[in-house]
Every structure is written in structure tokens, then in C-alpha cells.
């Protein structure tokens, strides 16, 4: 009897703690159910509404938990479930908030994108299952759950990239994404097996405890960590596993590009932050200096992403490379971690988390603006964007906000997150990371301002009559993202304070 009672309270407790994840999963199932029950009716409003409601309620729940202290040091500490393979703490809730807010904006925007689509149910259910998996990545606390959730996020993503079945670019991008994803999953799984072999555990905390006793197996542990880092590089679109990103972001439907470059990247980073901070921090002095590894990757990723972006002629591809560059900035959060219990560790990793939060809005907004341009069908290059500001001032204003914010101009949210990231790197002694970051940021203003210049300064080359249609969902999503990007400058305090506290809890 008592065992049963124990089980039910555990059950209720787990459901409550995991409510944000479960809400997204249930809404995905609901969309699938609607589609299966009425397969002949095209119920775009219903499925889109379900998706928006599901992601928004998950967002609301995670923000509520964050505000009320659930899983955080002030509210009883991290909640560990299912033999500690799942953890609900500040980091998890913060990243659930990022992923679900991106998913909500993408769901709203996709409504217009799918107007002519025959089967919106499959699109929305894939989107929601991918979101579910990304929220699971945020709560995964064992290499087994990490691997399962990572693959669970990847599979719907492949399908979503290739969603435009009749479009060659989309299908080719999906195939490329799938092949590189399969290779990186193999590498990742092999890395997990090596780490398990060396430390005897898959639970992150137990791995950390086991690293002290690896003895002669330190080489195997080091190779395993290196391979796991490769898996994360794929998921976050960092060098050297970044090749899929420009193709996939360019070929995919633009809302999916927004989703992958913001939410999927954030989910990849939350796993990387948790695994390396919790499990592998002791390995810094024993097996492999992964801080230096990420430092080199960060520099190469920042330089390559920003320089490649500067040479593009198509806006979407430019944003794809800029998204790689931003992965480089977030990698600073891992690169500047040191082996000792230095408070600078939490500062810099918290700053990287806050940067991903701001990035979730400004980057999603930018890709959704491109979705709007695709909806109008006026072309893909910088020249095709000329004169749009005259016909669509509000959306173009929002796009200018995203561009300046991505460049880190000290006017919008993107400034503080970058600045504090660089400040954290300097405090930890990694001034060279901050220097490369500052220089590449200054360079990035060049190519971001090309978009602004085209939108506002240049006169239209052809007819812009297509701009008379005002896609409501896309507009709403872009404007919301723009307003949040602006408000994140005065309102950056709660974000950075939550992120720092969450990062500090990881290192505790």
C-alpha cells in the first residue's frame, strides 16, 4: 500500500515537474490525432491553434517555474527524476523557455506559410515532436537520455528540412542534413561508449565522480570526450561539423530554418553546457583540455561564420553563416571554463545562456522575415530586397532591429549578451577570445547593414505589388520578436541573473 502511495506521489510529482515537456508532447499527439480522425478535412486553423496553445502554455509553465524557484537553489534545489536520468533545474527551465518561445513564434508564422499546403497536420506534428525532444534535451541528465533525446530531435528535423517535397533544394538539403547527422550520431554514440568504458557510468554526476579513478584509461576517456564534443558541434552547427547548416537553412522552408538555427542550436548548447560542466569539468586536468579545444573551435567558428557571411549574395544564406558565427560566440561559454571552482566559470557560461536566449528572438525574427519575403515571392538576393521598407515599413523596421541586434550594436538586446560574454571571458583570463569576438562583431555590422540598406535606402528594381498581401501570422510573429528584442535591452537584468544562477548551479 505504502509502495503504491509512494509511486502515485512520485508520479504526480514527476508530472508536475515535467509539465512543460509533457504539454508540448501532448499537443503534438493532439495534432496527430486531429489529423488521423479527420484525414480528409484540411484543418489548418485547428492544428495551428493547437500547436500555438501547446507551445505557449509550455512557455508559460517554464517561466512560472523559473519565477517561483522550482528546481533552483532557492526552491529546494534541482529535481531529479527516473533514477536521476532526468533533471529539472534552472538551466533546463531557461532552455525550455527558449525552445518553446521559438517554437511558438514559428508555429504562428507557419500558419501563412502553409496556406496552400495539403497536409498541415504532418508539418505541425513533426514540429511539435521536435520541440518535445529539444525540451527533453534540456532536462537530460544521463548520456543515455542525452543520446535518445538528441536523435529524437534530429529525426523530425530531417523530415522538416525536406518538407517541400517537390523542391530540389529542400530535398537535397534534407538528405545532406540526414547523412551528416547519421555520421555525427555514430561518432557521438561511440564517444559515449568510450566514456562509459572509462568511468563505468552514464549518469553525469557519476561520470564526474568516476573521472578521479580512471587511471590508465585516461586516454580512452579523452577520445570519448573528443567524440562527444564532435556530436555537439554537429547539433550546434559549429566547425568542423557545420557543413550541413548553410544547405539545410537555405533549402528548408524559412520557418524551419528559423526553428533549427534558434531552437535546435540552443538545445544542442544546453546539452553541451550540462554535460561538460557537470560531467567533464574534472577531466580538464586529467584526460583532455577540452576548454582549449572549444577555444580553438570558437575562434575558428566565429571567424569562418562571419567571413563567409560577408561574402554571400543571398540573404538567407548570409543568415545561415551568421548563425554559425553566433554558435562561435556561444562556444566561448564552454571555452573559458577552468578546472578549479572559479566564479568566472558561471559568469561566462551564464552569459552564453543569456546570449542564446536573446539570439532565440532576434534570429528567429530575422528568419521569419525571410519567410515573409518568400511568401511574397520577390526573390532571395540582397538586390531583390530593395525598397521593401517603403511598402512594408513595420516588418522592415523589425528586420532592421534584428540586424542591428545581431551585429551587437549597443541599442538592442544583442549588445548586452555579447558584451557580458566578452567581459566574462576577460575576467576568466581569455582576453584573446574576447578580442576575436569583438573584431568579428565589428565585421558583422558590415553584412548585416547590407540588408538594412537594401530594405530602406534602395529603390525597388521590379514591381512590389506582391507586398500588398499582409500575412497576419508572419507579421504577428515578426513584430513580437522585434518588440522582445528591443525590450531585452532595458529588461536584460532578469535574463542574465537567471542565467548566471542557473550556470552557477551547474558548477556547484
Amino acid at each position, binding site marked *: 500500500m505504502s509502495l503504491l502511495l509512494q509511486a502515485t506521489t512520485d508520479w504526480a510529482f514527476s508530472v508536475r515537474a515535467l509539465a512543460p515537456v509533457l504539454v508540448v508532447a501532448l499537443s503534438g499527439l493532439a495534432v496527430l490525432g486531429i489529423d488521423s480522425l479527420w484525414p480528409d478535412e484540411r484543418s489548418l486553423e485547428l492544428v495551428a491553434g493547437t500547436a500555438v496553445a501547446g507551445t505557449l502554455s509550455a512557455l508559460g509553465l517554464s517561466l512560472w517555474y523559473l519565477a517561483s524557484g522550482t528546481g533552483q537553489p532557492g526552491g529546494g534545489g534541482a529535481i531529479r527524476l527516473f533514477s536521476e536520468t532526468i533533471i529539472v533545474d534552472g538551466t533546463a527551465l531557461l532552455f525550455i523557455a527558449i525552445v518553446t518561445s521559438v517554437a511558438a513564434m514559428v508555429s504562428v508564422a507557419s500558419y501563412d506559410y502553409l496556406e496552400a499546403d495539403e497536409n498541415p497536420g504532418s508539418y505541425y506534428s513533426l514540429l511539435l515532436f521536435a520541440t518535445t525532444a529539444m525540451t527533453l534535451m534540456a532536462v537530460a541528465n544521463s548520456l543515455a537520455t542525452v543520446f535518445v533525446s538528441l536523435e529524437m530531435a534530429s529525426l523530425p528535423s530531417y523530415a522538416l528540412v525536406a518538407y517541400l517535397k517537390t523542391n530540389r533544394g529542400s530535398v537535397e538539403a534534407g538528405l545532406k542534413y540526414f547523412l551528416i547527422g547519421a555520421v555525427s550520431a555514430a561518432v557521438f554514440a561511440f564517444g559515449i561508449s568510450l566514456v562509459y568504458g572509462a568511468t563505468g557510468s552514464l549518469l553525469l554526476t557519476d561520470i564526474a565522480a568516476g573521472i578521479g579513478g580512471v587511471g590508465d584509461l585516461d586516454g580512452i576517456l579523452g577520445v570519448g570526450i573528443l567524440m562527444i564534443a564532435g556530436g555537439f558541434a554537429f547539433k550546434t552547427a559549429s566547425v568542423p561539423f557545420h557543413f550541413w547548416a548553410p544547405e539545410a537553412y537555405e533549402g528548408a522552408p524559412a520557418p524551419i530554418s528559423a526553428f533549427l538555427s534558434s531552437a535546435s542550436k540552443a538545445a544542442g548548447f544546453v546539452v553541451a553546457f550540462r554535460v561538460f560542466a557537470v560531467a567533464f569539468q574534472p577531466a580538464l586536468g586529467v584526460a583532455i583540455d577540452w576548454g582549449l579545444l572549444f577555444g580553438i573551435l570558437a575562434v575558428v567558428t566565429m571567424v569562418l561564420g562571419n567571413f563567409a557571411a560577408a561574402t554571400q549574395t543571398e540573404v538567407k544564406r548570409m543568415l545561415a553563416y551568421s548563425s554559425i558565427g553566433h554558435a562561435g560566440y556561444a562556444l566561448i561559454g564552454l571555452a573559458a571554463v577552468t578546472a578549479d571552482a572559479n566564479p*568566472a566559470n558561471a*559568469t561566462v557560461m551564464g*552569459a552564453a545562456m543569456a546570449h542564446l536566449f536573446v539570439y532565440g528572438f532576434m534570429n528567429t525574427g530575422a528568419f521569419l522575415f525571410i519567410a515573409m519575403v518568400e511568401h511574397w515571392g520577390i526573390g532571395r538576393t540582397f538586390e531583390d530586397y530593395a525598397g521593401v*521598407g*517603403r511598402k512594408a*515599413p513595420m516588418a522592415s523596421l523589425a528586420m532592421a532591429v534584428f540586424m*542591428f541586434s545581431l551585429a551587437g*550594436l*549597443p*541599442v538592442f538586446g544583442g*549588445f*548586452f549578451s555579447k558584451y*557580458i560574454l566578452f*567581459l*566574462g571571458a*576577460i*575576467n576568466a583570463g581569455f*582576453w584573446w577570445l574576447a578580442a576575436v569576438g*569583438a573584431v568579428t562583431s*565589428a565585421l558583422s*555590422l558590415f553584412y548585416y*547593414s547590407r540588408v538594412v*540598406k537594401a530594405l*530602406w*535606402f*534602395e529603390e525597388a528594381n521590379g514591381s512590389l505589388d506582391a507586398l500588398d498581401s499582409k500575412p497576419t501570422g508572419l507579421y504577428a510573429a515578426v513584430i513580437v520578436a522585434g518588440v522582445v528584442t528591443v525590450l531585452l*535591452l*532595458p529588461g*536584460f*537584468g532578469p535574463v*542574465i*541573473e537567471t542565467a*548566471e544562477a542557473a550556470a552557477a548551479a551547474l558548477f556547484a
Partner: protein
Amino acid sequence: MIIEALLAATFLSAVIVFALPDEYAPKTAFGLSLVPVAGGLYMWATFTGSGNALTGGDIAFQTVLPWLEVAGYTFQWYVGVDGISLPLVVLTTFLTSLAIVSAWTPIDDRKSQFYGLMLLMEANLIGVFTALDFFAWFVFWEAVLVPMYFLIGVWGGPRRQYAAIKFFVYTNIASLVMFIGFMMLVLSLPINSFGLPAITQSLAAGELGSFFFLSPDALAAVAFVALFIGFAVKVPVVPVHTWLPDAHVEAPTPVSVMLAGVLLKMGTYALLRFNFTMLPEQASAFAVPIAAIAVVSVIYGAMLALAQQDLKRIVAYSSVSSMGYVILGLVAFTEFGLGGATFQMIAHGLISGLMFMAVGVIYNATHTRLVGDMSGLADRMPIAVWILVAGAFAYMGLPLMAGFAGEFFIFVGSFGSTTLQYAPVFTALAMFGIVIVAGYLLFAMQRTLFGPFRLETEYELDRAPIHDIAPLVALLAAIIVLGVVPSLFWNMILDATVPLLDLLGGGAL
């Protein structure tokens, strides 16, 4: 709270005007811009501050609120005014309202966006002059650039894209240099705040540590140079002035008014606040090269103006010359030097605003700005022409006009400077600039305004509407009032600049 109310009202006005239909935007924008004018005048009338805001004076209308706390540092929302910043706030609000009226004729495209951006710029300018925390200040400082970039790039002349991007690139690189220099300085101080008063007082107490391999002295010198470069571009001084004529020529009249009248003063204001208040010893160590830059700007700017054929370019280059006087007054570091430089910021804001507006009125009527294309305009548009003449005399420093007071104070102050070596030589050279100013202004006016009427364009001469002339009259009135009664601002300016003299152990007149 009055400053927050002022900022909120201006930002809100910008949003309202941006969303209005084009036909209502001009008049609504003017009406809403009177709210900050009233707020500025109210602040001026009830001003109770004393001393310099950074060196521990009594700051008026002060608010301090925590903004964010990270990595051991506190960022604050910290605003307030002293005798240096309040006149600049009043100038900003006054000039914006007049610039908005002067835009009614030339701006006929995308009106609501234009006026919305003007008000947005005004709000950020008020922020620049009132912010007392470095980050709040820096955000406003950069946020001024963005509307300006659009105002030149969208509503400018034929080469507007080039001019807008040149302006944006120059000022952004300058900001980056300044930002890095200032960060090195603050990170080497044993304080955890970015409040400008706290930083100033910590520096004055000699608490500067070393930064990686830079000793405190070297660090202070490096930071001083970085800050000077950052602000000199904004002023601008020779040789980093080349963005200015391009920006002015391409910008529409009201934007030129704001650029010359207020945006250039951001540079000198920041020089006074940062370089000369926070690092006075470095300022006196670098006094001779800075004075040389100032004098070169005065003379070279005036000579460039002499060589121009475009009326607007003439006025633009003469701004380079006039801002040279301000730098000379700052580097002299005397009671009249610092006070005169601050006063000259206000005076030049009004006078250059008047000149650009008058040239704009002539352009609206004639559709040309080239000196060779016109002559004898005095017969056809007497009011505008005589106001332009009055403005030119104000520029030359006619007594009883604001320009005289400013330049006279600067020369008195710089002649007797003890911190600047060879002060009399620099002063004499700079005074020579006035002769050139008189030369090019009189020469240009003689050819365009007087003599037989002639106009070589495809257009008929238009009659200037009343709303073109009204802001000219208002500006001229302000220039004369301030010239006759300089004490309206002079007393509060002295109150805020005299405490700075203690930083270098007194100082002469």
C-alpha cells in the same frame, strides 16, 4: 522623475508619429515636440543643482535605480543634470521643434517615418546629455546614430547611401575605439559601478591600477588617446572630419540642422565629461598637440570653406572651424576657457542651425545651392536673406549676438591659460580664423544675395512660405537674447565648470 517623463514622452511621441498617416504627421510631430520644449524650460526654471555632476556636485533631477548586476558589476539607470548638460538639453528640445517645422516644405515622402525618426533622435539626444551611468549613456550615444543613419540614407540627396554609410562607419569605429579604451580604464579601477561620478572620483583619488601589461600611467595615457579619438571623430576635428561635409551635403535641411546643431556637440560634451574631467592630468600633458589640432581645425576648416561653391558645404566646413574654438577653450582649462567652450556649444548650435535653415529656405525657393547659379536674391526674398546675413554676422562674432559671447570667452580663457604652453600663440592663430570666416561668408553672400537678380535653374523662384521663415525668426531671436543676456546660461555653466579647475590645482582666468 522629470527626466524620465521627458524621455518617455519623447519616445512615445516618436512611436505615435511613426504610426500616423502621412498627412497628419508634420503638424502632430511639431505639436508633440513642444512637450519636451516645455519640459526643458521647466527644468531650466526650477534648476537647483550646483557644482559639477561628476566631481561631487549637487545633481539636479537625479534618479538612481539598479539596472542589472553581473560579474560583480552594477549597471545603473542613473540620470541627472548639472550646469553643463541642462543648457544642452534645452538646446536639443528647442532645435528639434524648429527643425521639424523647417522640414514641412522639403520633406514630401514617407513623412510619418521621417518625423518619427526625428523625435526618436531627440529622445536619444536628451538621454545622452542626461545619462550619468556609462552604459545608459553609451546606449543613448549609439542610439542617436541609428535614426541619423536612416534620415540621411532615406531622405538625402543623390549620394545619400554613400554619405549615410560613411557617417555610420566613421562614428561606429570611433565608438568602438572609445568603448575599448574606457573599458580598460574602468576594469582597472577598484570600483564595481559604471556610474560616471564614481569613476571620476575614483580616478581623482589616484586609484587606477594596471591593466595586464600596462602600468597605471601608460593605461591612463592609452585610455585618454582612445577616448579622444572616439570623440574627435564626432566633433569632428581635422583630419577625421571628412564624413561631415558628405553627410551635410546629402542630408535634408532639418537633418543638417540637427547634425550641426546638436550631434556635433555630443563630441565636445563627451570630451569635456570624459577626457577633461576624468583624466585632467593627461589632458594637460597632451595639451599642446590637442591645441595644435584645434588650431589646424579652425584654420584649415575655414580655408576649406573658402574654397567651396556649394552654400551648404560652406556652412558645413565652417562648423569644423567653429568646433575647433570649442576644443581650444577646453584645452586651455581655465575658468573662461571651459565655460566659454560650453557656452560656445550652445551658441554654435543655434547659429549653425540658423545658417543651415536659411540655406535650406533659399534652396527650397531656388532649387540650387551653388554660389555661381544665383545672385541678387535680396530683392526677391528679403526676409530670408536678411536673416541669413544676420546669421552670418553672428557666425563672425558680432557683439550682442551669442557667437560673440562664446568666442570672446574662449579667447579670454585661452590667452591666459597656464596649463597650455604657448597659449598666446595658439590663441592668436585661432583668432586669425575669424578673419577667414568673415572672408568666405561675406564673399559668398556678396555673390549670391546682392547685385542684380539672376537665377540659372529650370525653376521659377518660389515664395518662401511662412512656416519656412518662422523658425528662422525664432532662432535669430534666441541668438540675440543669448548674446545680450548670456547669464541665462553662463552662470549655471560656470557653476559646473569652475569646480573642474580644482582638478589641476586652480588655474587662471
